[in-house]
């Protein structure tokens, strides 16, 4: 299941989509809005997430399918919020299930790392009347290189 949503989502409802007697492990990643750790003068009120929806759905499907094949997953759920999201709220949810824990954990990390550098979403931080466009982090780009060799193996 892949969803791009404007509103907050229920973790219980999403969990009900993945429950199965075939699962030995379910891994969950939940990304939330945090304050800027390096800027003590300003507090982030919210972020705004912009999306090219048609392309983002296609990209998330490709990432999900790659993970399912590579780690032989039972199921995979990806939900991404868009619009204005207050400090502390949920942004992105990734849930992977598999017979054993290694596959669900590894695939979950792969999906969030790929999403961060490939999927058509853009983040802005809001500080009162001010806003700032967030730039791609170098460490996220470097992490992708690690996955290239994993996927080829």
């Amino acid at each position, binding site marked *: 299941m892949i969803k791009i949503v404007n509103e907050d989502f229920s973790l219980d409802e999403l969990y009900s989509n993945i429950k199965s007697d075939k699962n030995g492990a379910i891994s969950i990643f939940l*990304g939330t809005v945090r304050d800027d750790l390096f800027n003590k003068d300003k507090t982030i009120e919210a972020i705004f*997430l*912009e*999306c*090219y929806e*048609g*392309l*983002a759905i*296609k990209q998330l499907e490709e990432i999900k399918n790659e993970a399912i094949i590579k780690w032989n997953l039972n199921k995979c759920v990806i939900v*991404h919020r868009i619009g204005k999201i207050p400090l502390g709220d949920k*942004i*992105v949810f990734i849930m992977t299930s598999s017979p054993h824990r290694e596959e669900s954990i590894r695939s979950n990390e792969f999906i*969030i790392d790929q*999403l*961060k*550098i*490939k*999927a*058509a*979403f*853009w*983040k802005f931080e809001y500080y009162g009347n001010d806003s700032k*466009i*967030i*730039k*791609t982090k170098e460490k996220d780009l470097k992490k992708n290189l690690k996955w290239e060799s994993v996927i080829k193996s």
Partner: protein
Amino acid sequence: MKYFSWIRVKLDKSEDSFEINGKLNFKELKLFLIQKDIFFKEIFNDNSIKFFINFKEIENETISIIDGDELGILPPVTGG
């Protein structure tokens, strides 16, 4: 044409429509857009920006663009 992130902010609009008579390739479309607005020169010179036609990344500038096609102009993404 769809604009996102800092490009949308700078142009102060999220999309544009242009009529194309006949068929253009992407290289010709770039020249056409630069003639319309010199800002596109900055966009096309920026190696970090990606271009998509109908949700497929453009890898070859000779690809044909026809009326009704959707061009997405994408700065580096920052989701998650």
